[in-house]
């Protein structure tokens, strides 16, 4: 009986693994933690095998579990205080157009530095949205009403972008003033 369940489960979960992994990777930004998250999600899904078999949109159902588990895990972990953005210093910095800004690998590195400073819900929204999930799907996954979802997603983008810019400006200043990082 148990082996039969595992076989049924494997058949259901295998097509969803890459989906779950990619979203998890965007959340944790490293393979090991991402795969751990996927494993946690799958263990929970296995306990609800009947539900998994009957649910219409398995992808949304599993992503919802992943979203909730990620939020719970993040709350339990000790988090560094969020760095407050000094709007004045940003305003007096050099003008910043996204066209002339950090690109490619530099951007990814800055983004990785900025990422831990987001709230876990912001990370989750950005991660899922950048994986291509539309707003309607995100409302199903997160349980947020559409208006709140759009507002939070936009705030998350703005927040992340400003953090990236702030990090970039500090490192430029450090380079110019001869300080080591």
């Amino acid at each position, binding site marked *: 009986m*148990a082996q039969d*369940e*595992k076989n049924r*489960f*494997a058949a259901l*979960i*295998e097509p969803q693994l*890459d989906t*779950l*992994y990619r979203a998890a*990777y*965007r959340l944790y930004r490293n393979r090991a933690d*991402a*795969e751990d998250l*996927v*494993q946690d999600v799958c*263990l929970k899904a296995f*306990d*609800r*095998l*009947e539900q998994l078999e009957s*649910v219409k949109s398995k992808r*949304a159902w599993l992503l*919802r*579990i992943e979203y*909730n*588990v990620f939020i*719970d895990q993040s*709350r339990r972990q000790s988090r560094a*205080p*969020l760095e407050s953005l000094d709007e004045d210093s940003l305003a007096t910095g050099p003008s910043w*157009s*996204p066209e002339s*800004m950090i690109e490619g690998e530099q*951007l*990814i590195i*800055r*983004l*990785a530095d900025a990422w831990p400073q987001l709230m876990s*819900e*912001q990370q989750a929204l*950005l991660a899922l*949205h*950048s994986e*291509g999930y539309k*707003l309607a799907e995100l*409302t*199903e996954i997160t*349980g*947020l009403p559409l208006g709140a979802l*759009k507002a*939070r997603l936009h*705030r*998350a983008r*703005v927040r*992340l*972008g*400003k953090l*990236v*810019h702030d990090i970039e400006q500090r490192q430029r200043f450090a380079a110019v003033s001869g300080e080591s990082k």
Partner: protein
Amino acid sequence: MNCTEVASVLDESPVELSSNGLPRAIAAHVEDCRDCAAAVIAQRGMAADAPGFASDDLLDRILGALPGDSSATQRAAKRRPRRLAIVGGILVLGGAVYAAIRVLSGDADLPFGESMVSQGREATESEDDYSTDESSEQNVAESLMAFVDAAEAEDQRAFTDTWLGSGSLPDGEYFSLLKVAPRYPDEAAAAGLEGAAVVEFTVTETGDVADVTIAESTHALFEQPSIDAARRFKYKPRVANGSAEPVPGVRNRIAFVLHNAQLADENEPESAGTGGTEDSDSVDEQSQQAFDALLMPILECLQAGNLQCIELGLDEMLAIREWTPIQVAQVSRIYGFVHHRQGNYERAIEAYERAVGLIGDVSQHYYTAPLMTIARIHYERGRYQQAFDAAVEYLKHASNVSAGAYGFVDELRRLGAVPR
């Protein structure tokens, strides 16, 4: 953070936009708009850092980690009573009595998320069951209130301890803060009987009443109601040589006059507890779920010490739907806390007073908790009478009142505040 010019474009085309470059109209806008420029940077960064694929052996590892000794259904059934007991216990501790009663009475179908119900299958478990951390079952609103309570209590201790001086209380005589009207005995009322009783008791070091006895009475029917009422009186304790001390032998005459049982000293304030807004305790489940979901990011902001994001979130909450009076009181209290921390004192008072005004049951912690903070802010702004009024209201109804709070009230009287 107001401009959302690019938001709808970024919402709908996350990947395509980033890879194909900005449409000309948007590119022109972001040159001048920092918020929108930041949003585009973030979008591009997220698109650039694309994950690969799951490891080839991930499925094998997952299957290897699955328990194999019993079926999924059996495991879920075995876990349910334990989970119910844990959930029930934690929710009781957390103060969410409503949900706890449901669980412990055997109603195991906890509320489930709307999107799962829309799948056409009757939900039997809460989406909260997906959490591996049992403590996350606690009502988010209760967690938030506990956080605000702890922060405010710390401030309050620091403030009221200043009235302790160098370890001692300011000397002062005892005086009554609260006298409760007695219940008129049914038999006496039916017989048209009026009368009085004199109670004798000790005012303790904490301002409570102990050792209540009847010194004299006109009829035995009036004795127990008089004792019951006296036990609920509250006093600011006597302080001599810097220490609170009990005062035995305090007497109070309680008169029973038909249609209105009266206390002997009619200049003393009647107890509160009447009027006010009735708060419904039977919060709709879906409403509480929605409330908690919207409060969750606010809790994270508070824990991280980021107050700036909280006000926006609270504004949004109040705009989205109508909440119950107690939910609005909770939101108002958080507003008050944030404004206070940010130095917006008038707005803090306004928010705290709104929270207090929404709670009809004066014995509730939500009623008493903000009062001393209101008193403190008024005091710091030189409004001693208003500070006194709020502090006395707090002393009337709060439990575990610190000695420093009484010292504060004494100080306000010295500054000219008078009991109303």
